[in-house]
């Protein structure tokens, strides 16, 4: 083992009683961590119940990746699901002289970790907005983003649109070429709403769920040859 490999092995310094108590704490902690980690993929009811027991400990120390309201840390990297893609949030203002859209994430952005944060926010917004995780929370982030964007743009209203970039239809993606083409050419609108500024903030009037597939403008999202930011 890596740590105590000096030769000869140094003597154990702690008393038996101390070791017993520390062992108990170690066991409890590792059990909680084990529950958190095995719960990440397809948890059983028992695992969920156990995770619930340790939840305050695990969540406050950020030791669990089990989605609470959305999967913020995708350790599976991608299953080609509808939300395993990058999202883009656009707010198009209405009634302003320069109707320039607010985009999230705005590119380019340096250092790259900033872009990663904005992309994470866009992805969380898209995942929730797609309704994959239930109807309770899809409009929370679109509302806060729309409010921020309209304030920045000085507009009284507008439209917010969340787009999934390259969301594939897995059944049709039977070879690398079609997957690559889908990633370049496909944009799915997963959420669209009218945003209206009211005295208490911003209200969203959501359009019917849309999943139409539209071609994007040439070059807009095409992958340039060479370096590309995350």
């Amino acid at each position: 083992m890596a740590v105590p490999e000096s030769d000869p092995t140094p003597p154990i310094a702690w008393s038996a009683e101390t070791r017993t108590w520390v062992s108990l704490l170690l066991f409890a902690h590792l059990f909680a961590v084990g529950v958190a980690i095995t719960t990440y993929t397809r948890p059983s009811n028992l695992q969920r119940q156990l995770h619930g027991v340790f939840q305050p400990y695990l969540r406050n120390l950020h030791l669990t990746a089990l989605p609470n309201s959305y999967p913020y840390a995708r350790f599976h990297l991608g299953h080609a699901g509808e939300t395993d893609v990058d999202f883009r949030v656009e707010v198009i203002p209405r009634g302003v002289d320069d109707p320039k859209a607010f985009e999230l994430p705005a590119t380019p952005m340096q250092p790259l970790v900033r872009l990663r944060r904005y992309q994470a926010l866009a992805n969380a917004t898209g995942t929730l907005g797609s309704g994959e995780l239930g109807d309770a929370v899809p409009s929370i982030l679109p509302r806060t983003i729309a409010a921020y964007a309209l304030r920045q743009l000085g507009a009284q209203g507008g439209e917010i649109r969340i787009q999934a970039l390259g969301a594939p239809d897995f059944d049709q993606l039977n070879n690398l070429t079609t997957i690559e083409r889908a990633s370049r050419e496909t944009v799915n609108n997963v959420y669209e709403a009218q945003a209206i500024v009211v005295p208490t903030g911003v209200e969203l009037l959501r359009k019917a769920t849309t999943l139409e597939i539209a071609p994007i403008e040439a070059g807009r999202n095409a992958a340039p040859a060479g370096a590309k930011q995350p």
Partner: protein
Amino acid sequence: MMRHVTDYFSRLSQGFGEGWTRFWFTPGDPATVSAIRLLAGVLLVYMHATLMLDLEAFFAADGLLPVGEIAILEANTFSYLNFLVSPAELWIVHLLGLAVLIAFAAGLYTRFTGVLSLVVFLSTVHRAPMITGRTEVVLAMLLLYLCLAPCGRRFSLDAWLASRKGKRPDKAELFTTATISTRLIQIHLCLLVLMMAFSQLSGETWWSGDGIWFLITRPQSRLIDLTGLESSPFVVDFLSHLLIGFELLFPILIWSKLFRPLMLALGVFIWSLLALITGDLTFTAAMLIASLAFVGPETVLDVARSRRTRVATA
């Protein structure tokens, strides 16, 4: 027959007890945890410092993520940032947090700044979990375990100040808490890597060898465009299977002295490859830093000594 069974369980419990004690409680040199503190601290400082560029955009009352509106997404976790209202308060507290993280990375009052760094880091993560990712899960684990260890004993201002006062650290000074901390990092890292493998294998794409390709084709995320591999589908399949194979084997073979260097070297390749195709540089850095827990303190000290000699010679 019953006696054999009783004897077996008696030997089993005795062997397990001795092994457990040896594994967790043999005192160790704090060089490894100190090196992890230094590197993880630098990464934490970088992440906290870059957050300054978007501090008000994310955290201000009129920012993208106002506390009241996103509370339901925070999962009842504690963050002192939830109690800050004005931009001035935000800036003051954020800069104080940065100072704490810099002190921790430099190894100044490490016992104290270690715990404070954990509070600073967790408060930032809990304030806006939707701008976090895989990196923060690894860093939270590292920080928590570093708080248990005397990780300021080496490569730190604490050690430098002590040597100036004439208190040269005893070369043979060993700590049980250094071993416990290192063991916890090792086990937790193995569990995380195994979780990645299992979660990837729960879907179709990683079995079929397309998993890597889906990452390569994400135009927003990747650092470099590897879509040229389209003409070499076997390479794509191989990389997908290599990643899964590594994740499945790492938690087992890393415990073998013979395979450990190989797994660590393979880890550098795999995590770097992931950085290129997912753009997640900080996650790669965090995984490489955590992997240091498998490098013995003697090796860490040798590297530090040879580096010092090279600098002195230059």
